[in-house]
């Protein structure tokens, strides 16, 4: 619990560089993370557009890019996944909004370790630069999961040389940055809460960021270790992931580095390709929740605020998130049912995976319970929160198919999986980011975003993403394998090209609609309607301070909290919302 002696450790900086570049202010750092993610998401989206075009017109001669070769497609695919997972879905919800709003929502003047905070952002930035550098030397083609030996042997394909080294290095740097951030978030929540801000009075967003940070602390360390081992396999002749006797004579069409002589074996012995998968997914599955938990927090916050009703089952929501966090560490093997792992362990992983559906279902019930008998206001942030719930349901319900090893036999590595994870950890998480952007924009920039443009953006994006990702489930049932650069070579797959074509058109429309958002964002920063301190009539502490908040967040004042986070429509209260720092005498729970 914070004591009153805590003072803002650093004075407001004056120079441009200290203020906006190497800033210690969590709000500036939050925005830096956000804009890094914004650049990353447009790069990642551009890559997906190129991929969608190539899938349908594999021989098209595109401006700038020319004809995309199969290996180039796989490079785009690798970079799309890596950029989106690490630099968008991990960066924006946690590094961006978490950094900006966690301290304010718990009534703290800053994060616990401002210098570490700055360091973690700039380390993330370096990781991004290193990843982008891979583009210029030929990015790897092994996908974002980087399965060994494909990722471990430079002669396994184009881009598996220096490009793969840069890719792994980037991820390792990103892990280090995330570990710093995670430590900071955890300490801040435990030590920096204002008087009266008990754990069970924290907004669910703070709970989500807190649990996400714990997941990050436990997961990124493992990926960091795995990445270092992979780099050693590649460059120092160790054999963690590469077994003996590999022979790459199959790469005859690959002129630069393929082993031409059949006696030229890869010099390794005793490594295990499955070890990489275990280590990767030990990180990889919690990562899914790292991406989605902050979105769950935002959806909870917004559904309550805009339904003018307390969140249904606050405690259940907290326990559900904790349950998801814990179970999230014992389900990784469901990515490996077809990997050659013991079929007996599949049993255990399958049961655990089904179990993790339970807290996810509780959250959905509680969101619906929050809307029920509320008074729903349709501001743009709320539209995206509702969209989040819809996408979470759609993406979540394909989970119990994939969690059953026996159904994974036909579905694993097909478009069914692509549709599943894009809906839930891609689009639902992105809807969380959109909802958070529209919701907190007034606080961050002092102006409102355009509601009209926001609505267009919402309706086109919701419809568009469903049009892209729902048909992928059908493709998966029909056996369409993922990570194919074209569908011209396998007869039954060519029959599915018309549906793939539809998806490409839907992607073009949906991607175009994102420019409405981009325009709205920048136009509103300059020309948006001036925002009041609490435009949504919300209850949490960020709405009690100035817009935008001063350097120390509360202008020298230390908030004292007397109420829970979601006291809306309290009978007998003067307004339909009771703010967390309203006097204790205000009637509320």
């Amino acid at each position, binding site marked *: 619990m914070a004591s009153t002696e805590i003072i803002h450790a650093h004075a407001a900086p004056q120079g441009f560089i200290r203020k906006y570049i190497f800033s210690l202010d969590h709000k500036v750092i939050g925005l830096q993370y956000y804009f890094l993610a914004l650049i990353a998401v447009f790069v990642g989206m551009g890559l997906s557009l190129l991929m969608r075009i190539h899938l349908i017109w594999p021989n098209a001669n595109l401006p700038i890019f020319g004809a995309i070769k199969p290996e180039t497609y796989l490079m785009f695919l690798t970079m799309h996944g890596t950029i989106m997972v690490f630099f968008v879905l991990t960066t924006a919800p946690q590094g961006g909004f978490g950094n900006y709003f966690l301290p304010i929502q718990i009534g703290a003047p800053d994060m616990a370790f401002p210098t570490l905070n700055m360091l973690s952002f700039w380390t993330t930035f370096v990781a991004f630069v290193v990843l982008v550098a891979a583009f210029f030397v030929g990015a790897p083609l092994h996908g974002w999961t980087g399965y060994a030996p494909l990722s471990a042997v430079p002669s396994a394909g184009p881009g598996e040389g220096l490009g793969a080294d840069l890719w792994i290095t980037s991820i390792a740097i990103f892990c280090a940055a995330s570990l710093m951030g995670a430590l900071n978030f955890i300490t801040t929540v435990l030590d920096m809460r204002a008087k009266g801000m008990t754990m069970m009075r924290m907004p669910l967003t703070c709970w989500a960021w807190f649990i996400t940070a714990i997941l990050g602390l436990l997961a990124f360390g493992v990926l960091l270790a795995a990445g270092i081992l992979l780099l050693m396999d590649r460059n120092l002749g160790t054999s963690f992931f590469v077994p003996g006797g590999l022979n790459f004579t*199959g790469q005859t069409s690959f002129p630069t580095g393929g082993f031409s002589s059949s006696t030229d074996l890869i010099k390794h012995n005793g490594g295990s390709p499955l070890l990489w998968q275990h280590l990767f997914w030990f990180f990889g599955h919690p990562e899914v929740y790292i991406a989605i938990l902050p979105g769950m927090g935002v959806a909870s916050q917004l559904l309550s605020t805009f339904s003018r009703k307390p969140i249904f089952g606050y405690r259940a929501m907290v326990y559900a998130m904790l349950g998801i966090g814990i179970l999230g560490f014992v389900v990784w093997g469901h990515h490996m049912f077809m990997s050659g792992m013991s079929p007996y362990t599949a049993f255990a992983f399958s049961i655990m995976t089904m179990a993790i559906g339970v807290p996810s279902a509780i959250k959905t019930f509680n969101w*619906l319970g929050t809307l029920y008998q509320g008074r729903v206001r349709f501001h743009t942030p709320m539209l995206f929160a509702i969209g989040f719930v819809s996408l979470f349901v759609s993406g979540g319900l394909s989970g119990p198919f994939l969690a059953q090893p026996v159904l994974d036999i*036909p579905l694993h590595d097909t478009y069914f999986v692509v549709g599943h994870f894009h809906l839930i950890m891609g689009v639902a998480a992105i809807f969380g980011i959109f909802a958070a952007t529209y919701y907190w924009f007034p606080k961050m920039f002092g102006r409102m975003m355009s509601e009209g443009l926001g609505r267009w953006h919402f309706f086109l994006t919701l419809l568009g993403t469903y049009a892209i990702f*729902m048909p992928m489930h059908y493709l998966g049932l029909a056996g369409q394998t993922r990570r194919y650069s074209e569908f011209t070579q396998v007869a039954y797959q060519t029959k599915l090209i018309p549906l793939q074509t539809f998806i490409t058109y839907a992607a073009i429309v949906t991607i175009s609609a994102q420019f409405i958002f981009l325009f709205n964002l920048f136009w509103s920063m300059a020309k948006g309607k001036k925002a009041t301190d609490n435009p949504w009539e919300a209850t949490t502490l960020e709405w009690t301070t100035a817009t935008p908040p001063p350097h120390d967040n509360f202008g020298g004042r230390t908030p004292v909290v007397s109420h829970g986070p979601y006291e809306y429509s309290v009978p007998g209260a003067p307004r339909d919302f009771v703010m967390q720092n309203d006097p204790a005498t205000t009637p509320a729970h």
Partner: protein
Amino acid sequence: MGLALLALIWLITFVSTYFFVAKTWWFPVGASASAAWIDHQFAVTFILMGIVFVAAQGALGLFVWQYRDRGATQPVHYSHGNAKLEIIWTVLTAVLFIGLNLMGSRVWATERFDPPEVGAVPVEATGLQFAWYFRYPGPDGKYGRTKAELEDASAGGESAVGLDPSDAASKDDIVSGTMYIPVNREVDLALRAQDVIHSLFIPSMRFKQDAVPGLIIHMHFKPIQTGDYEIACAELCGLGHYKMHGMLKVVSQEEFDKWLASKEAEKQ
């Protein structure tokens, strides 16, 4: 706005469900002994998840419209939730998910825990960038030795899998780019990969298994319908992943014997 949302969410729900129910795009007809069980388990899961999907999306659309803000006079039910309801839906979901899981586990166990039947046809499948090769041990019933340093993909056939001719057991081994299997007999499959991970995917057999370098993975399945079935690679294996396909020909026992004999004759 509430009505627009309701319409959109219900429309998405209807269209999504329609194409599942209409089976416009669906699994190929199952042609193996386990296909019926797998398809049954899929159908049960699909019906249950479909009900939850329609109910949840339906309620979401309905609630946002029904409880839209109609001005300050609209009553709001001040409530922090309901512990009894939480317990009910936690238990219901747990029973649903775990029950579904146990059901499916039985099928998985017969698929993967039991050894192949006595008299199963031994076949070895080898994945390499970017082709599948299938090896039959010949009359001696023994696979000959293979050596990594002898592998030469560009030469194809026996050289591609690195068959060592100095081993006596190699003399009668048959290596084919097409997989021949007699109908109604189980296949005792040994999966190998010699460079990166590949995955042998035969949609009509409801069969998929990764082939991992350094491991020999034993699997079995039983085709129950003659015909030609396509094989694809399901694990990203490099630039030619998309064209790493093969063919499974399920034929009568006589045809299979004839084919094997002709391959043996070719070899002598």
